[in-house]
């Protein structure tokens, strides 16, 4: 399946574009997606934290991703 991922802040700068399309095995977990992205963009692994959001909620590591989900990478937030 193809996953479309929205990128923000330093994650967007590391990848060099605002969205990323990746092909992933069916049932790929949030954690699995992060591992494959860490391998492709080692700078992502150096961040204080990196979360996956699915449909505007933080996803647990074992959350299975689906093609129709709105997926985003969330580097450490710093609002306020």
């Amino acid at each position, binding site marked *: 399946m193809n996953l479309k991922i929205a990128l*923000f802040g*330093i994650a967007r*700068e590391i990848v060099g574009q605002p969205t990323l399309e990746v092909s992933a095995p069916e049932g790929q977990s949030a954690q699995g997606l992060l591992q494959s992205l860490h391998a492709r963009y080692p700078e992502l692994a150096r961040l*204080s934290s990196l979360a996956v*959001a699915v449909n*505007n909620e933080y996803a647990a590591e074992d959350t299975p991703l689906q093609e129709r989900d709105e997926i985003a990478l969330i*580097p*450490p937030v710093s*609002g*306020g």
Partner: protein
Amino acid sequence: MIHIDLTDQPIDVLAALRSVEADGAGAINTFIGTVRNKSTGRPVVRLEYEAYDSMALHQLRKVAEQAAEQWPMVEKITVIHRKGTLHIGDVAVVVAVSTPHRAESFAACQYIIDTLKQVVTIWKKEFYEDGDVWVAAHP
């Protein structure tokens, strides 16, 4: 009862305060976050806030709802956060809470700003004379 906004326009602080006025409220507690001129000892020239809008609004509402659940006497809550380019002294965020008595409005207001900083999808980039950095990105 809960009003949330994310804006690229200057925040009208007085309007935010008025928005939580309520006949049952004997207390209005407000937190105003402003842009200061230095960060970890380095002079800051300006900063930029970037937001994942849909998730930031959703999470802001969730944080305000959690506060209203935890302090059920809350009358009204307003949270407004800036995005875009801000300069020294600009208002970055306003949290306003009204309650019958003061203790709850202090507590709910602090809960909201502290939790906002942990979960809401807004990122701050600080610009110095000689470079820039995404705040909190690295250990």
